[in-house]
Each structure stands twice: as structure tokens, then as C-alpha cells.
């Protein structure tokens, strides 16, 4: 078994297993915890509307906070959108998903993917520099923040190298790329990357609780 076979075979399979089992474990571990009943007289009975409202509206900053948070949110949006375009718009990725699910959709031109990848990497570097230099972020940051950054950055960087056939044989580059994705999948349930699922639960929880009280959301 060569490196590429290992990456495509056992590495990816085990990584996907850890990914699915880990996510399920973490979500179930939170959601099955005790929820106390609320006997207070609700101001608004339709608290689920608040959950939806907060899930949607918290996606952009309020006017009052815009000045102070616009830069961080913009850079965040750039690399998140970039990652979505790369993962779901690149032809080889679509073939991978087709093999996995049978679903297929049109791909984006390579030039668009390349440009997006470059912008995404640049945005991720800005994010890292900011985390290392901003006093608040430096104080808050721990291993999870830096490792999650690394496992996000690595697949994009190795993907670009693979497409460019730069630095090694194509098969080796592809194997490294797939292994970097495997690493991301293995880390995903344990660190902050889980925010991609938790964002809906956390926002929804506050939205529902606050809507019930008529509090600001």
C-alpha cells in the first residue's frame, strides 16, 4: 500500500469514523443534559420565532457594534465563503462527493477556484496575525485556536500545491492533501470547528429564551 492508497483508504475511512462518532458524541452530550422547565409567564409564546430570528440576524453586526467589529467579521466572512466555494465548487471535490452520495452539481472554473484559494489563504493568514497581535485575542487563544487554524489552512494550501504540481510528485502531493483533510476531520469534533453545528444550537437557544421574555436579541 503506497501513501496515496493509505490516504484514500484507511486514513480517510478512520478519519470519517472519528468525525461522525465524535460529532454525535459531543452533540448528544450537550443536548441530553437536563433542561429546567420555565414556569414564568411568557411575554411571547412563540419562542421558536426568536430562535430563527437570532440565527439569521446574528450573521451580521448590529449598527451599534459595526465600527468595532467590521474588520474581524469581514475577514471571517471572506475565508468562510472561500472555503465553501473551494469545497463545493472544485470539480475533483464534486467527483468525490458524487462517489460518496451520488449527488452531482456543476463545478466552477479552475481559475475561480485558484483565485478563491489564494484569497482564502490570505484571509486565514490575516486571521492568524490578528490572533497573535491583538491583546484580547492573544489572551483568549489556546491550543484549540491555533491547531484549528492549522487544520483549516493545511488542506487549502496542500490543495493549491497539488493542483500546481509544485514541490513533489502529484501522487505524493495528493496523498498529503487527503491526509490534511483527514487530520481536519479527526480534529473537527474536539475543537472549535464544531461551531459550524453549534452556531445554530447556541443562537437558537438564546433566541428562544430571550424571545420568551421579549428581551433584546
Amino acid at each position, binding site marked *: 500500500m503506497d501513501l496515496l492508497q493509505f490516504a484514500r483508504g484507511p486514513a480517510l475511512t478512520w478519519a470519517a469514523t472519528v468525525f461522525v462518532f465524535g460529532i454525535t458524541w*459531543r452533540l448528544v452530550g450537550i443536548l441530553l*443534559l437536563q433542561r429546567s422547565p420555565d414556569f414564568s*409567564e411568557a411575554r411571547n409564546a412563540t419562542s421558536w420565532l426568536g430562535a430563527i430570528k437570532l440565527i439569521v440576524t446574528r450573521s451580521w453586526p448590529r449598527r451599534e457594534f459595526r465600527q468595532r467589529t467590521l474588520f474581524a467579521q469581514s475577514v471571517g466572512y471572506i475565508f468562510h465563503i472561500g472555503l465553501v466555494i473551494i469545497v463545493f465548487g472544485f470539480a475533483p471535490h464534486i467527483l468525490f462527493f458524487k462517489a460518496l452520495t451520488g449527488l452531482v452539481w456543476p463545478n466552477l472554473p479552475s481559475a475561480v477556484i485558484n483565485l478563491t484559494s489564494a484569497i482564502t489563504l490570505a484571509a486565514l493568514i490575516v486571521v492568524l496575525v490578528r490572533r497573535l497581535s491583538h491583546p484580547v485575542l492573544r*489572551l483568549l487563544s489556546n491550543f484549540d485556536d491555533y491547531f484549528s487554524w492549522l487544520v483549516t489552512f493545511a488542506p487549502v494550501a496542500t490543495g493549491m500545491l497539488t493542483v500546481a504540481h509544485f514541490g513533489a510528485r502529484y501522487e505524493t502531493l495528493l496523498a498529503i492533501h487527503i491526509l490534511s483533510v483527514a487530520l481536519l476531520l479527526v480534529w473537527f469534533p474536539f475543537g472549535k470547528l464544531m461551531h459550524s453545528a*453549534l452556531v445554530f444550537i447556541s443562537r437558537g437557544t*438564546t433566541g428562544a429564551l430571550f424571545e420568551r421574555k421579549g*428581551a*433584546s436579541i
Partner: protein
Amino acid sequence: MSTADIDSIHPLELDQPRFSVKNPAVRYDKQGELPDVQRVELAMRAFVKDFGAVAATYLESCIHCGMCADACHFYVATEDPKYTPIWKLEPFKQAYKREAGPFAAIYRVLNLKKKVTVEQLEAWQELIYDSCTMCGRCTLVCPMGIDIASLVGLARHGMNQAGLVPHELWAVAERAQREGSPLGATPKVFKDRCEWLADDNQVDIPVDKVQADVVATMSSIEIMKYPDSIVATAKILNHLGLNWTFRSDGYEATNFGMLSGNSAWQQEASMKLIHATIAAGAKLLILPECGHAYGAIRWQGANIYGKPLPFRVLHISEFLAENTQNGAIKTKPLDKTLTFHDPCQISRRGGAIEAPREVLNGLGVVPIEMKDTRGLNWCCGGGGGVVTIHRADPIRYKAFQIKMRQVDDTGAELLVSSCSNCRQTFDDGQDHFHWDKTMLSLLELVADNLEEK
């Protein structure tokens, strides 16, 4: 503590060369004589008890983006990163990950999250108490929607169990539990006050009526510092011709048990009001101009009672708004410009945002809104018990300057709010900065301008 004690605990290094003088030691207060190991154990037990589904969701969700700092008056006023709201919960988060999270076993076995130490808890006392009013502005900026303020409230439970509460806050909470009021407004003092206020102002102030449709309550700050609020409440309720009363077994709505993190004391204080209202056979409990009292009874009261309350609960501003809108309260128009300070626990976190504005409209005033207003209003800096903690004064004054700028920018002639704790903080800030603005009470404004029937 004597001067000698202070010198031995925090020795001055005046004889040392200037460059060798260290930063002052972190100062913290302790209650009781417990060994450190036991303090940590008690804190951990309380922390773990509070890790329900909601707290766990929040503690799992933080992405360390730091945006909460930008919403916090203590961070914005100082730019000191330690005042970042979510950082104030670091030991709480650490305890969660190690003791209760889905991967706690891994964190413990591999020691990836260290045990919380007493030194951490001592150092965090300032962050959990002195520099957080639990105003919840940070909750509104968090991209994950984490309600950081509620987590600080929970973290205070563990700190209280460990006997690590700022002493002034602990002392007033203890006094409230022992005497029934944090500021000495015992049932006897309260009844005496009601009696002389009734005489002085020629107004009927019923206390301890056997049966009443409405039970009114006061905050100790009003009873001791702003007694005109008692008169104002009586004038309005009499004006409406209601069968109402104060009850000497349930008149004090402040809840320092809640603010200091003592759940048992919180429960005891809340149950007094609940039992008094039930004993009077009342259908309505009116909460006074006090922010945290509103949260304690309106939103937490029924949960402490264990079932829905058999009566309605309204903040005085909501009560005034209802009766202004239905025409029962008629007031003379106020010929002044005015701005309104939203008390965080009533507006942002309590949901009674429009009520005071409806009352002001009844007075013929459309308030000049501050730039960040309603739910996004900046806190006065004194809530959450902070105003009682003397060592927090310097940082509180810095935060208060944000508020002063907000108010000054409106150019309004009058400044009004519906929380006596905010009012007290504004009065103190006015004195400190020799400011030309005096905080007025919405309740008193209505009472002073009632139209005779």
C-alpha cells in the same frame, strides 16, 4: 482590617529601588476559614451543578473571537483585555471542560485541562464581581449568541460557595438575609417610614392590609435613600382607587442573594414576596424601580416557586404604561426635553423596553434617544452589585464616563430612568465628576404630575 494588617498583607516597598517595585498583589476577599482545597471543591461542586443543557451549549460554543470585549463598558473604558467578558469565565469554562463536558474524561486522563486552583478563583474574583454588571450587552454582539451574562451569574454561585465574594457585597447580602434588607430597612423601619411619610405627605400608605388586590414592593435603596418613591407609589395607587397594600412580611424586592451568588438566600428573599402576595390574596405584584428585582421575580420567581405564580408580576413602569394607555392615569404635560436611560435588567434582559416610553408619551414627552438605546443601551456600571464594591469604584467611574457622554450628546434637559440602583450610580457619578445632570425617577415624575380627578 487594621492598618497593621494591611501593611503585612500588602507590604509597601518604599525602601526598594524604584525599578524593583513589583505590581501590587491581586487583592481579594475571603469569607470563613476554610482550607483552600475545600474552597475549590465547593466551587467545583456548585459549578458542576449549574452545567445544564443551556450552560453547556454556551460553554461548548465559544470561538474565542473576542468580540464580546467590544460590547463591554469595562473593556471599552480601559482597553484592558482581562475585562473581555468571556475571559471572566475562564475558570468556569476550564471546570466545565474538565469535569462535565462530553470529552471530560479525555481532558482529565491526559490532564489537557488543569484543575482549577484557589489562586485562579481568587484572581478571578475581580473579574466575576467587580467588573461585570451582568448587563448582557456582550450577549448581543456574540456571533455564537452566547448569553455570557447568565454564565457570570452561574459562576457567582461557585464563588459564593467557596467564600470568595467581595466583602462589601457579601456583607450586604448577609445583612439582607439576617435583617430582611441590605441597608437596614427592617420591617419595623419600613413601617415607621411609611407612617411618617403618610403623615408628612398627607397620603394614605396602607401596610399589612389583610386582603388586597395589589401588593406593592420597594427596593431598599428607595426606602432608605429615595423615600419619595414610597409616597409616589402610594399617590398613584390611591389615585387609581385600587385596593392595595405594602406587606411588612414581603416589601423588600432587592435580592442580594442573587447578586452575590447565594442561591439559598436568593430563594428566601423571593419566597418572602411570593408568600406575602399569596397571603394578601392579591392578583398583582408590582415590582419597584429596581433592575435586578425584576429579573429575580418576573423571570426567576416562578421557577423558584416551582410552578406558575398565582398572580401577575409587573414592573412599576409596565404598570404605569398599562394605566396610562387605558386612560386611568392622566398626567399634566411636561414642558421639558428629556432622555431615558434603559436599565439593563428591565429593558435589554427583561423585555420591558417600550413601557417607560409609553409612560413618557403620556406625559407629552417623546424622549430624545441616546445614540445606543433601548436594548443596546450602555450600562451605568453599577448593576450586578458592582456599586456596592468600593474597590471597584475606579473602573466603575471609567465606565460611567461612557454613559455621561451618551447623555450629554442628547442635549436633553432631564434625565430619567426606572431603576433606583441606576439612580444611585448616577448620583454617585454626578458627585464624583461634578456633573450637571441629576437622574430622575420615572415613577416620581408621574406622581408629581398626576392630574387631579
